């Protein structure tokens, strides 16, 4: 278990003191794949570097299985760093060394390691990450995804307890990202290694994390189960990450027509979005809804998101559609006003007249 206790870090810069982390308190349990997400400049990289003490926190503590890391000297920390290993956005392999030599590097830093056993272990790990034939290749001969696999094998060779992933997939294309995340998940399950994933991509958190903390300006603004955070984002920063289209105003809901009737559907999990719900509504109640805006995501095997529908016809069609949709499991329905006065400075995009209590967070 890793506990971050009131962790703060400030830097002296020419522009004065900058507080990169402010009183961050988090608990990461064994076996977690824990996401730490935030926009660039939120303090993610500083936070992950405090976990293995590459950056010394200004105040607060990092406690690994009951041992305080701030109380340790450099020598003890070097031992800890063999148990808390790291992979990076830029892979950071030695370009003048073969893959095998790269994987072996952490072991060669200790005196009197068993060369034959180390070599066998390194080859085994290269096999685990899917590169059994690249032992003697140089990193320059590999693709980005392959290089990250070598970096993962290198991070595993000291049998770590915790793997820190610092934007490990940010330099990769979506397909490769998916493959690397699958590999990380497999490592988490097969080798029982706790994983901490630092990212700015919500999709990465969705895909592999079970818990997530949202970092904004050096503070944790929200923390919890990934499924909960997706269904019910509380903090503004979280809503921005979960529904970027709404936050940046690109999906303007206030643009036209005073006469159109609109319904918003909120998907709170289950397989709601995978069933042809709108098609069945058209058949069952004869309402031909069209989709105005939609943003759907799946997290932990469930579907979350929202869909904005336009209902043709008059109030009668509207009420038929609403009563039909209310019967669907895991879907909440809001009917929206037909007049949408724009509000200044907020993300509240329209008035709720349907009486649905959904927008508890103040927005959405």
């Amino acid at each position, binding site marked *: 278990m890793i506990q971050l206790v009131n962790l703060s870090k400030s830097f002296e810069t020419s522009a004065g003191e900058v507080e990169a982390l402010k009183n961050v308190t988090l608990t990461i349990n064994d076996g977690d794949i824990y996401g730490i997400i935030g926009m660039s400049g939120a303090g993610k990289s500083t936070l992950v570097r405090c976990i293995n003490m590459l950056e010394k926190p200004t105040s607060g503590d990092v406690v690994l299985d009951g041992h305080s890391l701030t109380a340790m000297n450099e020598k003890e920390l070097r031992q800890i760093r063999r148990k808390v290993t790291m992979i990076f956005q830029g892979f950071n392999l*030695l370009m003048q060394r073969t893959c095998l030599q790269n994987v072996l590097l952490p072991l060669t830093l200790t005196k009197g390691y068993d060369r034959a056993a180390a070599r066998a272990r390194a080859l085994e790990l290269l096999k685990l990450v899917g590169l059994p034939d690249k032992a003697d290749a140089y990193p320059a001969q590999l693709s980005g995804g392959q290089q990250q696999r070598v970096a993962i094998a290198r991070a595993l060779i000291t049998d770590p307890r915790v793997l820190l992933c610092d934007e490990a997939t940010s330099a990769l294309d979506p397909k490769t990202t998916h493959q690397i995340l699958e590999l990380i998940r497999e490592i988490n399950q097969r080798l029982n290694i706790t994983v901490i994933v630092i990212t700015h991509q919500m999709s990465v958190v969705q895909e592999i994390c079970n818990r997530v903390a949202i970092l904004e300006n050096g503070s944790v603004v929200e923390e919890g189960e990934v499924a909960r955070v997706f269904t019910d984002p509380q903090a503004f920063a979280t809503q921005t990450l979960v529904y970027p289209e709404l936050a940046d105003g690109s999906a303007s809901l206030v643009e036209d027509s005073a006469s159109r009737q609109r319904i918003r559907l909120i998907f709170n999990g289950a397989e709601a979005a995978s069933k042809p719900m709108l098609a069945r509504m058209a058949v069952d109640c004869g309402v031909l809804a069209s989709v105005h805006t939609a943003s759907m995501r799946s997290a932990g095997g469930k579907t979350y998101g929202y869909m904005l529908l336009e209902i043709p016809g008059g109030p009668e069609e509207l009420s038929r559609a609403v009563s039909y949709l209310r019967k669907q499991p895991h879907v909440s329905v809001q009917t929206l006003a037909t007049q949408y006065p724009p509000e200044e400075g907020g993300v509240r995009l329209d008035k709720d007249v349907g009486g649905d209590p959904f927008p508890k967070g103040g927005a959405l």
Partner: protein
Amino acid sequence: MNFSTAFTPEKLQEAWNIIIRDFPGEIWATLYVTILSTLFAIIIGLPLGCVLVAGDAKGIRPLPAWLMTLLNIIINLLRSVPFLILIVMVIPLTRLIIGTSVGTVASIVPLVVAAFPFVARLVESSLREVNPNIIETAQSMGATPMQILTRVMLPEAVPSLITNFTLAITTILGYTAMSGAIGGGGIGKVAITIGYQRYRYAVLYACVVVLVLMVQAFQLVGDFLARKADKRLKK
């Protein structure tokens, strides 16, 4: 210089005789003075360059600021003294080490004194080119500063170091010509004492051609080795 009289058949014949008589020995002298001087300059300059990078305030093993300032001042001072004056300045040191301040072997001392600060700067620039993220990665593995230097920074810098050492050896080759001033041997000495001072211009030009060929040879070998060493190039 009078070209019409410098290259008459008699002059050329005389120059050829000098070339046949002196060049093999003098080329050899130039070669071993250059190579030995470069070797000693690297032996001193390589660790010094490492200290300059590692001991930096933001380096892997910061050293006291006054020490770094002192090192930098010494290096800059040695680098700014003209070589001809440096030769005279280090005469006491040369006597102490070699026993005499005159001769081919004695010319190695001022060459090393002139070249090691230059080599230290070259090593410094090679090491600073190493991707800082890779150094951070080594720290995240629990590497000590010494391990980072020997297992990560120096191996990663090898191609760049070879390129810079090639630059050093060609520069030192140029300096050997000046060491003829204190009786050091070599092609440079022949060019000055016979070619220039005794008006044997054909010999002077022959010396220049030989020096150019030697620089070319060092450069070719250096470039080849650097390319061969660099595993970043896809093959």
